[in-house]
């Protein structure tokens, strides 16, 4: 089986959300439905000198995440109607004819990938722009990135190009799920973990349907 995946250069991501909007436009997503989301990671503190000068010790970066089309997706076994499946290209997809919109997949996925769509009453998610893939076009998010911080391809090719790291703080550990990601972490990622940095823009990333 082929396995397609995303490369994310977290060190170069400016958090501009062009990928998020390109995705919404390509897929006609309503407000509140975010197949791709950009998390703002922030942690640390500010020390004040007696002079009034400030010495910050901070970790900040942005993390653009959609569905990672995991090798062992948590959403798949959670689906009571077997609507979720992995196809021959490694894509995790939802069969609309079987989906009952129960959100079990949303609860199971640690990445927040499956998103309830209030208009259809069904679960929806990133399909890697499968129609584009068939036309040899890149997914909409990847070709949109003004910083050229995203890439896409078969996992073995991506790993050869960018290495084998699949995670960055605070993404969940990868041993069970094996997300189809290759990640270049931001220089402040280690510090972020040390400082227990948090997602500080949750209101911008939550599926509110």
């Amino acid at each position, binding site marked *: 089986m082929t396995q397609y995946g995303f490369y994310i250069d977290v060190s170069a991501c400016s958090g501009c959300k062009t990928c998020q909007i390109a995705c919404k436009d390509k897929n006609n997503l309503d407000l509140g439905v975010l197949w791709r989301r950009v998390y703002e990671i922030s942690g640390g503190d500010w020390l004040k000198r007696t002079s009034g000068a400030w010495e910050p010790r901070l970790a900040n970066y942005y993390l653009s995440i959609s569905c990672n089309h995991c090798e062992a997706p948590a959403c798949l076994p959670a689906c009571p109607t077997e609507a979720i499946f992995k196809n021959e290209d490694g894509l995790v997809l939802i069969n609309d004819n079987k989906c009952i919109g129960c959100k079990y997949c949303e609860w199971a996925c*640690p990445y927040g990938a499956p998103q309830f769509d209030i208009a259809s009453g069904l679960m929806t998610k990133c399909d890697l722009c499968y129609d584009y893939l068939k036309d040899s076009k890149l997914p909409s998010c990847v070709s949109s990135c003004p910083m*050229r911080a995203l890439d896409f391809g078969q996992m073995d090719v991506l790993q050869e190009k960018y290495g084998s790291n699949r995670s960055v703080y605070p993404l969940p550990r990868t041993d069970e799920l094996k997300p189809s990601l290759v990640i270049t972490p931001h*220089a402040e990622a280690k510090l972020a973990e040390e400082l227990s940095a948090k997602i500080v823009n949750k209101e911008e990333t939550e599926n509110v349907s």
Partner: protein
Amino acid sequence: MTSRDRRNFIRTSSILGGSLFVAPHYISSLSALQPGQKLADRLKSNGWFRLGCPSHNCGGRCILKILVQDGIISRIETDDRPNDLPEEPQLRACLKGRAYRRRQYHPDRLRYPMKRTGHRGEGKFERISWDEATSIMADEIIRVKNKYGNEALYIPYGTGSYSQTNGRWPAVRLSNLIGGSLGFYNSYSWACISKATPTVYGTSVTGNQRQDWLNSKYIIMWGWNPAEMKDGTNSDYLIKLARKNGARVVCIDPRKTMSAVALADEWIPIRPGTDVAMMSAMVFVMMDEDLLDESFISSHCQGFRSNDMPAGYKNQESYADYILGTKDSIPKTPAWAEKITGIPAETIVRIAREYATIKPAMLYQGYGMQRRAYGEQVVRAGCVLAAISGNIGIHGGWASGMALQAGGGPRWSVFPTGRNPVRARIPSFLWTEAVIRGTELTDKEGLKGTTALKSNIKFIWAVASNALINQHSNINRTSKILKDETQVEFIAVQDQFLTPTGMYADLLLPACTQLETWGLEDGWKYGEEVILMPQIVEPAFESKSDYRICAEIAKKLDVYESYTQGMDEKAWTRKLWNAFKQSRFPDLPDFETIVESNAGLHSRPVKNPKISFEDFRNNPAANPLKTASGKVEIFSTELHRLNNPKEIPPIPKYIQEWESPFDATVSRFPLQVIGPHYMGRVHSTHANVDWLKEAFPQRIFINPIDAASRNIKDGKLIKAFNDRGAVILKARITNSIMPGVISIPQGAWWQADEDGNDIGGSVNTISSERWTPLAFGNAQHTIMAEAKLYKQ
């Protein structure tokens, strides 16, 4: 953090029942725009079009690839030309261009001409015909012209639509055919930097072509934030490439901006308005440690030390005198600067050493810090640092200042507006003064072209401008001025939406978007391309292009033939395309060829980037600057003659701002407020686009330390206020802004509640109308305020 915690880190904090947004699906808003609308057959109504992204004043110029199906835009992609090399990178559109469908098919688009029915500013209008609307316009123009003269007519600054054939240019062309109108000079963007840069260099063309950034080894982004502000499509990307090429990048800014996060190796927070203190201390270190380019100073600069002061000024304070405190007894040491800037002295020392020794180095100044009290000083100080460290006229260096592109850059206007018969001009920011006391204005307020105006402003025609209310300072004051119908007697607003400015209109003229008419553009400040913007869909409802609206008014004023010269929007676009061909781009294909090809643009690669001041550096005697001395003027005799050393010193100085954390009012208003550009908007354009508001909601950004001392919690409504007004918004607590500073991103639409509080969140509700001393520029980021929890 445990594995289990991490597993749930990203998951929504709670699974919400019900829907918080009641959002119409995009199809329903499409159909809302379509009743009775028949698409003309002359437009190709299906297929992919490549064209320029609608031209707002966004700091970029990008390519969209738009799918039109049955006359409706159904998808927006971007530049996908192959290769994407640094010398000719793809012009990838940002989120605002990608979200354009939500603006194009917004249910609030202005559909019909309307006239005011209620009181001015109340926002009550009734629909009228185009015939009535253009008659009202023509009648009012003639009435005001006859009663007060042409100096009473004013077409204010505004950049909401900014292609060559749309926006305010056509209105200016029409005005110039009927005797003209009061002119203005400078802008809300660049007043201080455009005035102050030539006082040092004799020109504003101080920039290199951007590909040269890849030759730099050290880059200071000083208040410069290309990721959020753009400053040329790909400026952020090219800094990324420069860094990849080995440049160390330092960001100095009160906010840890998106640029700081994605592009910088180090971020140094600085108290707003104190940049000159740090720059001065850097010079102190460079003098102390003998790190200056002494040979360049002695051969190319005027006024660094007493021995290179101009004849007749030898006893005046030289720059070295100022830095060492020879005359004012205050040596500008890093310890002195630490107390002012909030930056540890040893950091200042280190940055001074790095900038002086890692060659070549760039000090790139942003524009926010010159939209402040005494904004002229930071421009001059930055230019001087670049010069005395020997970084001008070399590859990988940067002269700082205005930085228009070497070798000829984009042109802001090629649309022939003609000559304005009215010679009087005011600074763009002082129009409210010209309304309330125009006839009293003198050169002390920047009046040019006349010794006195014959009339106050009595007629305003705001085209693509939200600067009457939202983008001008002190909204409550402006609102009061505009509500008084004995002052400005008639206000016409021509726009695509009912903006806060539009609320003050007597007449509303609905303009179509750039996707609904023809236009073209070249790069934004930088770039080597001409971009075509063909009409791809029909104007919504009864909206018309800015050009067409002015043509209809011209008809009523009997100047139709001279206004149009027999040309429609497409014919003008062809003519302007040829104007580019005859100037910057001799290789431009024919207009018909470019239209037929659907390429959307013509561009040329930059393989050998041009740099500014190369000739001057190599031979200053043969290639003097256009300054009085022909040299880099650290000491300016021209500024000395103005005889206002406290506010306009002849050498760049740190001057404490008129609203400052160091003055007495700090007990009432202890917080500095800044209004940066916001990712989801271009100034106030796009402020109403739902996808963009979802991505970047308007918030007051506040440091946890300031929030804690005020018992402010994340997401709660807070009120930021001073004597000028109050803004009420949700708080976003963030470590990415320094303590003592809050940010209210500029451009959100002002909306007054019953108590007069602004619940839309325009920072100009609390900004000041006071202007800068030399440039007469807007100091809209110099604001002191307090913030507290807002309780209903």
